[in-house]
């Protein structure tokens, strides 16, 4: 990534267990970036768009999004992020249990960058996260609009 520390990872995942597993494996892949974890859409959106430390106002980010959120549908959040706004170029990785073709298509239509189904098989899961980590370590995240 651009600068190992500057890109923050925003993880929107309501299941604590999943969040922990994801975090563990990202760290195992050698990613040391800041990971912010949110368990519902409202607080996540608020942080992303309004908080002074959030990606809208403070540096690039990468978003890991689960679609099964308690207070709103993940696709709504995706639409908000990818709609016209400061975060529309932010890479979004949809990481969810659903493997429904219609859902996948919809997410891509809304502009997500990657769609990954969480496999139940843990080995595959862990590997996928690790590879995501490696992926994260080599991708370039675009600068936020309006930044100096």
């Amino acid at each position, binding site marked *: 990534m651009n600068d190992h520390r500057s890109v923050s990872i925003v993880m929107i995942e309501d*299941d604590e267990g*999943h969040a922990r*597993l994801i975090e563990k494996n990202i760290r195992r892949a050698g990613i040391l970036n800041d990971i912010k974890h949110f368990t519902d859409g409202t607080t996540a959106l608020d942080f992303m768009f309004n908080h002074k430390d959030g990606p809208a106002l403070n540096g690039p980010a990468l978003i890991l999004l689960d679609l*099964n959120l308690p207070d709103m549908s993940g696709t709504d959040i995706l639409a908000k992020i990818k709609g016209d706004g400061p975060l529309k170029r932010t890479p979004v990785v949809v990481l969810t*249990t659903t493997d429904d073709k219609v859902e996948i298509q919809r997410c891509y239509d809304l502009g997500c960058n990657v769609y990954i189904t969480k496999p*139940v098989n*843990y080995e595959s899961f862990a590997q996928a996260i690790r590879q995501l980590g490696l992926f994260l370590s080599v991708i370039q995240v675009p600068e936020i609009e309006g930044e100096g």
Partner: protein
Amino acid sequence: MFERLVTRIGGSSRTVSRWLIVCMVIGFASLVLAGLSAAWLTARTQDHTSWINHTYEVELAIARANTLVEQAETTRRGYVISGQPNYLEIYRAAAAKLPGALTRIEHLTGDNPTQQASLRKMRVLIDALQGRRDRTNALVSAGRLDEARRVFVRDTDARQMPAIRALSDAMAREEERLLALRDTEQRSSVQAFYATLALAGVLLLIVAIISVGTILRYMRDLAASRDTLRDFADSLEELVKERTADLSRANEEIQRFAYIVSHDLRSPLVNVMGFTAELEAATIAITGLIDRAEETAPDIVSEEARLAAREDLPEAIGFIRTSTQKMDRLINAILKLSREGRRVIAPELLDVEDMVSGVGESLQHMINDRNAQLIVEKPLPGIVSDRLAIEQILSNLIENAVKYLQPGRPGLITVRGSRDGARISYEIEDNGRGIEPRDHQRVFDLFRRSGNQDQPGEGIGLAHVRALAYRLGGMIDVRSELGKGATFRLSLPTSLADAATN
């Protein structure tokens, strides 16, 4: 409600036919009556006519006798007055005919005592008159004209002619009386006839009115019943549509439920598996420590700790792992079934022979490995149905046949099909290990299996096949004997599109 309607119609038709029969009987009876009356009247009229004729004949005879008597009288008078012999001849001619005429009257009025009495009186008078006439004629013939005239005047005084005329009038009047009587009788019988005709007419009219009325009412009833039936049929259709809609909704509900459940069950499963793997990793670290501790400081390693690290932890983790894996497979199976239920069915014309060959090819490896043989009895009837579903069913059934062979017997799997009107059935027969009769229904249940559990599987295949068969409007069943083999029969409508619209 239908039953009541049918009974009412049936009942009223019976009543109607009874009424109609009664009316027709009355109608015919009236006609017969009218006919008989006409016949009777004709006879009576003939009778009357003959009697009237008779009366006229009698009158005629009386008149003739009268004429003869008068003729005799006038000719005698002429003879007496003129003395000419031709008067005598005519008189003699008339006098000769008179007995005959009187006899005729006697003959004709044989049944009438009044007339007979009158006739006898007349005869007496005529005989007396005849005597006198003969005498006067003789006198005239003898030339004694004056004497003859004197006798003649005396005869006239004796008033026999008037008496005879009076009698003859009386007889004529008697006949006239009889005539009037018979006339009246005739008129009354004619009236009787008309009365009977009128009665018959009225009866027929009543019968007609009743018949027409009954028929009209029956037809109105029928029309009303038909309308009611139509309403029933309409409401029945509405009901069926409602129920079908209800059923589809219920079905959709179940599909959604299965889908949601599987997904929501997957989420915690990810956690269980994930953290079990973490546990495993952690166990390795601990085991490593125990190993090193055993080497360097064995006294701090308690038996409990060693067992825990070496046996308990790995065993527990092992069981958790296999169970979660199994749960994963089961959830996937449910998800697949529910997805199948939601998929849109696309009927098309299928070449089933082709599809079976395709399945055979894809299973070729397995078939060869297990020393089995797949035979297709051609021709297999084609069908209009969903391609994917039929493929899945055939594939599953044939694969099962190859999987569940009888050890020691080379497997022979036969596929055949037949068409029976609007339904087609395909049979997949094998000579494998067979299924016990009490498990014939069980094998189609989800997650249930039967017999020797030496083949991998979850008990999903046949449940899936049955669900698919139902969705295609068909059925599946099995005939089997343990140890002899099994025949699975799939019965489907010939055309799914038609079945759907029906």
